[in-house]
């Protein structure tokens, strides 16, 4: 059995039990063990990078140190966590001077970054440790009737030089997984464009304009649902539809599911175990197409 230290982050435990449940259950079923380590903190994502980049690197490195001490690689479920931890890991491994500077800061907390571990995104674990062949064999409820609009968001892919998940302009990793689950992955306009999530709280109007375009384009393309990777995209597009209704008086009814929820459903996990009531846009239509 392959084991990883789980980096849970903030948004998932605070707001998205549906994502956490689907990930824990699906990975357990696929033979991946998740270890919950004590004393992890915020990953230091873009909002913290905006305040002070050096601090954000030190915070990310601190969390990687905990995994190093436990002799485990890290798995992250959130694109924000993946970006900040993976970026810090790559930057510090490549730059001795920067590593020494960050280690001087970490010494105040009794830590030293060694650079001995990997930070992996949930999707990468599925590809590397399970593989599409075994994934396909594990599917007991193929999503055959489902048209899925894959949405990557930004921080799983970019900056690609450091994250190295897939081609930032023509990624395929998410579509490949969706199709392995038996669903049809459909194309739509401006698929790779940002959801606006990080502008929420600073400029809600602009954030909502970006989310609205995504919702409108996936609806026009005839998708049954959007599959998101990132908890921020999930919020922007799910709660976003309620806000679009009140601001623009436009009604959409586009279910938004984490691809992990689709994975759990395809693996035969009972929808009742997945806290699907967390979704603001009801997912009943999607569930009835699967069962």
């Amino acid at each position, binding site marked *: 059995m392959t084991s990883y230290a789980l980096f*849970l*982050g*903030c*948004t998932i*435990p*605070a*707001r998205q*039990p549906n994502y*956490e*449940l689907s990930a*824990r259950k699906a990975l357990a079923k696929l033979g991946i063990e998740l270890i*919950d*380590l*004590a*004393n*992890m*903190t*915020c990953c230091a994502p*873009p*909002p*913290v*990078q*905006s*305040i*002070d*980049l*050096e*601090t954000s*690197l*030190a*915070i990310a490195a*601190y969390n990687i140190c*905990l995994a190093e001490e436990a002799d485990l690689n890290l798995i992250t479920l959130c694109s924000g966590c993946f970006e900040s931890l993976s970026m810090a890991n790559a930057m510090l491994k490549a730059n001795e001077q920067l590593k020494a500077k960050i280690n001087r*800061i*970490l010494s*105040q*907390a*009794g*830590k030293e970054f060694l650079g001995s571990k990997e930070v992996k995104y949930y999707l990468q674990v599925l590809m590397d440790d399970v593989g599409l062949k075994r994934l396909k064999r594990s599917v007991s409820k193929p999503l055959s009737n489902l048209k899925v609009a894959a949405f990557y968001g*930004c*921080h799983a892919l*970019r*900056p690609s030089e450091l994250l190295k998940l897939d081609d*930032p*302009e023509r990624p395929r990793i998410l579509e490949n997984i969706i199709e392995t689950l038996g669903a049809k992955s459909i194309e739509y306009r401006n698929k790779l*464009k*940002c959801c*606006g*999530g*990080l*502008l929420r*709280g*600073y*400029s809600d109007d*602009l*954030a909502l*304009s*970006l989310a609205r375009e995504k919702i409108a384009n996936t609806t026009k393309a005839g998708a049954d649902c959007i599959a998101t990777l990132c908890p921020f995209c999930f919020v922007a597009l799910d709660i976003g539809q309620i806000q679009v209704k009140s601001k623009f008086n436009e009604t959409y009814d586009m279910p938004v599911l984490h691809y992990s929820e689709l994975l759990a459903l395809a693996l035969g996990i009972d929808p009742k*175990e997945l*806290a699907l009531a967390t979704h603001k846009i009801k997912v009943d239509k999607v569930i009835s197409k699967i069962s």
Partner: protein
Amino acid sequence: MKYGKEEKTTSLAFSDVVTSRLGGETINRCYQCGTCASSCPVAKITPRFNPREVIKLSLLGVKDEVVSGDAIWLCCSCYNCQERCPQKIEIADVIYALRNIAFKEGYIPNIYSEFASALLNDGRIVKVSKFIENKRPTLGLPPLQPTGVDALRKILSATGFDKLQQKKEEA
């Protein structure tokens, strides 16, 4: 943006300040081609933000307008511009460097101030409420592990992050 203030506030050294900061190192390579602006999802929907303009003003040394203005906070951090820049300027990171300078000078949007406080108090930028935490077993989730907030505070104090936040509280 207006250009009338250049005489009063121009400081040629500003681009040196930016390049000396983490994230800002590559700004001088810009030849204003505009690939960033045409790749930017925010610039498409508002005249309030244009990455090419932010870089131009920074290189011209119009520091006050850049660090006290609204534009630098409207980058959605999607990194499209950075992927496509023919000069390999780390544009999204340059914006972070400019935000870091703004923060240091006390230009701190409220939402970022809230993030900083949450980080200092709870070790997370989004707080997990007691209600949600207590609900975990009923949903079939394991208990949440404690955050390393004490270690985190030592790190925030070593980098001076905790002082940055005070600046906002004093203002």
